[in-house]
């Protein structure tokens, strides 16, 4: 399988890189370490983002923004007048096959298009294959390894080992199989309550069926599996009575009209007592149909509701009322609309905050969402609680005659819906239920006494028949209710069962996955054991400090220990190692794993990962890359592309990049992002000059000015580098807008020094021109106008004169080498020698 070097990157209109009509164009050597330096806010991270987008289709830090922050609006450069962004990659396969050219375009509407002018069959698949952990390493991923807890470190470590996709998916599975989250998200608690309630109803109906069957037929009901036969027995028993025969003849029990049956009995013998007996029996059966209450179950349900109310009240305490809620919602909409540019300023009171206002609003609204979740949970629990359903039924029971105005259940239902249900109201409702249960028992007892009394007073045959008919009606009603509730319960149990099945499945899947992932990372750690330790030793130049990575079996935790610390063993690395050592360990692990991995990308792009190293260790790391790991010197090596904003490191990059004997290619980015262009100084000096001339010829002085500044900085730094003029230690770190005068000052100080010592190698004309023509021209026409920001714009001819002064100034530090044929114009070796 071919692996790919990244040999060219062109970017236009993406993030901070405007470069309208003139893409930032960087060529990389596959045989050299490639470095890119830019001061802050000069396009370096935009390049890294461009590669992220090319390979992953997104920029992680934008992908993590909330939708209302409209992250899609920040991919394309906001000052580019074109239709979108363009990223072009040139990839060189390591098997000698032709280079592959891939173009990624993103429209302002977010449409991504990937094409290949070299005819690659599936350029998107190629980009996806290049998006491995080892191809791009940013500072965030790197630093998370350093001081995290063992658990957090274990998670960050996956990226260093090239296993972040595995780690993310394991964490996703663990989040999805978390017991608490599953119970809530799958609604298991509510379903279980519903199932229990349905089951209780089924049992109650079964009890009624037993009793009523026995009353009608005089036989025991002992096999619930024979319900159809028992229904037939009831119909047969009542249909056997001569006066009822026609009403039952040829009918199933469920089809019998019991109102007609009762009318028939009523007509057989009238009288008030008969009617009263019938009504008394109706009342008895209606009470018996309710079954008996369950005080223990009610207490459990009451406790569950009270707990939910306590949680809701605690959450409610974190909020500040409905007016604030509306205020935060309005603020959320206002900020999401994108009209408020001050991220850390309150749009209402204009106070400057230590945190983004959008985060604060999200946090506040989050409290309100938690309250809403609590209210929903209370509602679910309330509506499915058997004791609450029973309270409602008892209050509506005609036999108990509770006046409508005194009924609690309706009022409480409204409180539940409004989210205002209180603990006191719940306690009061349960007390009411207890009272009604007592009244119900008393009422049933009174009704039964009255029934006995009436039965004694009425003719026995019709008394018995009336009773049988009533129980027959009850049997029919309970049979329907029993079957309905049984089906309900079955449906609920089926939903619970399949959710439980999912829970078991996803829990097991998570375990299998986590075991496999731990085994994979443990194997990778073991495989790179000697390599990372060797790299660590080289970078830190120590032999008696040996780090040891250890991953707990079956856990994510990663412990960093010292197997040797100046002769002592098994000590805490976190406690003993300085930041530089810990950084060295992290990068050693990453590089060792990257070198061993054989994936589609044969390049590694790092973004500022060495900034936290001290300078000595930075250099040791660079030497390790250059001499041991870079493809070219190492036939099995990788291509390294290092992005940095470190001023000291830049001097090192610049020196190596200028040395033709060293395999190192250096780029320095300069420009005026995000509105202007960014150019690579080393590559683009001639292009810069051509562009300046074109713009000035067209009278576009405003567009030419930033490019003249770049050209001037490049020329002056080139003189300093070529002639080896010493610069102050803070030279590269000074205010970049003062770079021109910094350079001129360094050149002036050292030419004066050599002049005083009579060692200056420049000829008399060069000294005169330098002192009286070129430097004054640049200072007078540029420094006083632009560095101070006080001057007005100059004309195009005047600016063209500055460019000529720059070239003439540089020529003061060169001479004709007449020993060569033909004569060659060369730089002086130093200010004192050719």
């Amino acid at each position, binding site marked *: 399988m071919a692996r790919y070097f990244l040999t060219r990157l062109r970017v236009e209109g993406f993030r901070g890189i405007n470069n309208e009509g003139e893409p930032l164009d960087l060529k990389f050597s596959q045989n050299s370490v490639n470095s890119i330096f830019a001061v802050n806010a000069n396009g370096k991270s935009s390049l890294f983002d461009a590669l992220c987008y090319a390979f992953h289709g997104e920029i*992680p830090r934008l*992908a*993590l923004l909330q939708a209302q922050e409209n992250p899609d609006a920040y991919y394309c450069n906001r000052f580019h007048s074109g239709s979108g962004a363009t990223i072009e990659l040139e990839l060189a396969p390591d098997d000698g096959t032709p280079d592959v050219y891939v173009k990624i375009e993103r429209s302002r509407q977010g449409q991504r298009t990937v094409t290949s002018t070299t005819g690659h069959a599936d350029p998107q698949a190629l980009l996806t*294959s290049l998006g491995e952990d080892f191809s791009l390493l940013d500072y965030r991923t790197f630093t*998370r390894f350093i001081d995290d807890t063992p658990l957090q470190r274990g*998670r*960050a470590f996956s*990226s260093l080992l090239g296993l*972040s*996709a*595995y*780690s*993310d*998916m394991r*964490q*996703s*599975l663990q*989040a*999805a199989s978390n017991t608490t*989250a*599953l119970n809530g*998200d*799958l*609604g298991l608690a509510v379903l279980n309550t519903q199932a229990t309630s349905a089951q209780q109803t089924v049992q109650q109906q079964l009890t009624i069926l037993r009793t009523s069957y026995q009353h009608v037929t005089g036989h025991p009901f002992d096999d619930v599996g024979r319900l159809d036969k028992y229904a037939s027995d009831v119909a047969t028993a009542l249909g056997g009575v001569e006066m009822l025969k026609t009403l039952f003849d040829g009918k199933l029990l469920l089809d019998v009209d019991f109102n007609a049956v009762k009318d028939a009995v009523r007509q057989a013998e009238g009288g008030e007592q008969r009617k009263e007996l019938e009504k008394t029996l109706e009342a008895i059966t209606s009470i018996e149909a309710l079954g008996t209450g369950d005080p223990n179950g009610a207490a459990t349900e009451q406790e569950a509701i009270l707990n939910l109310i306590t949680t809701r009240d605690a959450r409610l305490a974190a909020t500040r009322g409905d007016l604030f809620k509306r205020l935060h919602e309005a603020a959320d909409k206002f900020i999401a609309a994108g009209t408020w540019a001050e991220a850390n300023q309150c749009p209402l009171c204009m106070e400057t905050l230590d945190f983004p206002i959008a985060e604060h609003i999200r946090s506040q609204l989050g409290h309100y969402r938690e309250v809403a979740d609590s209210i929903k949970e209370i509602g679910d629990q309330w509506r499915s609680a058997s004791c609450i359903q029973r309270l409602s039924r008892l209050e509506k029971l005609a036999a108990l005659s509770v006046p409508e105005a005194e009924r609690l259940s309706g009022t409480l239902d409204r409180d539940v819906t409004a989210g205002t249900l209180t603990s006191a109201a719940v306690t009061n409702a349960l007390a009411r239920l207890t009272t009604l249960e007592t009244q119900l028992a008393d009422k049933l007892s009174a009704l039964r006494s009255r029934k006995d009394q009436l039965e004694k007073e009425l003719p026995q045959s019709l008394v018995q028949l009336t009773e049988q008919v009533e129980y027959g009606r009850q049997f029919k009603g309970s049979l329907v209710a029993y079957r309905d509730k049984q089906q309900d319960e079955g*449906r609920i149990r*089926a*939903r619970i069962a*399949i*959710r439980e*099945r*999912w829970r078991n*499945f*996803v829990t*097991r*899947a998570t375990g*299998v*996955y986590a*075991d*496999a*992932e731990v*085994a*994979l990372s443990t*194997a*990778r750690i073991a495989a790179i054991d000697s390599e990372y330790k060797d790299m660590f030793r080289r970078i830190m130049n120590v032999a008696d400090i040996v780090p040891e990575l250890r991953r707990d079996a079956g856990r994510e935790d990663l412990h960093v220990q010292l197997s040797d610390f100046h002769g002592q063993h098994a000590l805490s690395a976190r406690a003993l190692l300085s930041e530089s050592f810990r950084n060295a360990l992290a990068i050693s692990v990453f590089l060792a794993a990257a070198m061993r991995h054989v*994936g589609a990308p044969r390049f590694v792009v790092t973004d500022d990962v060495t900034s936290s190293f001290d300078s000595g260790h930075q250099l040791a790391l660079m030497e390790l890359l250059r001499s041991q790991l870079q493809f070219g010197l190492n036939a099995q090596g990788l291509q390294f592309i290092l992005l940095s904003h470190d001023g000291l490191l830049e001097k090192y990059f610049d020196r190596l990049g200028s040395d033709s004997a060293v395999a190192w290619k250096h780029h320095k980015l300069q420009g005026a992002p995000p509105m202007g262009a960014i150019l690579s100084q080393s590559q683009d000096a001639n292009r810069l000059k051509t562009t300046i001339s074109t713009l000035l010829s067209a009278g576009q002085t405003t567009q030419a000015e930033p490019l003249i500044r770049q050209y001037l900085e490049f020329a002056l730094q080139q003189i300093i580098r070529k002639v080896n003029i010493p610069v102050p230690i803070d030279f590269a770190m000074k205010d970049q807008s003062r770079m021109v005068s910094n350079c001129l000052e360094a050149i002036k100080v050292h030419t004066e020094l050599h002049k005083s010592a009579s060692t200056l190698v420049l000829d008399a004309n060069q000294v005169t021109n330098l002192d009286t023509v070129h430097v004054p021209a640049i200072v007078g026409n540029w420094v006083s106008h632009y560095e101070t920001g006080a001057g007005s714009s100059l004309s195009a001819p005047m600016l063209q004169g500055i460019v000529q002064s720059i070239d003439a100034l540089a020529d003061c530090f060169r001479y004709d080498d007449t020993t060569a044929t033909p004569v060659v114009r060369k730089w002086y070796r130093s200010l004192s020698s050719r």
Partner: protein
Amino acid sequence: MPVFRFDDSNTFEANWSAFMVELEAVDAGMAAILAANKDKLAAIVRQGERNSQARSTFNAAIVAALDVLVAQAGGAS
């Protein structure tokens, strides 16, 4: 049954496919639901950052799929 392990010479996607095959032996119906919702699962943790809303979205999709399965089983019976 041998212990499932990822193959270090495979890509993540190839290893995920092997993992799914392993899960089909555990419970084919549930494995199919997991496979159909892989993108929603992957959104729960991205770049090490956990998103609880994405977890709720994933579980809501699972509940919907499970209810369909129950309804189909009810219809079949």
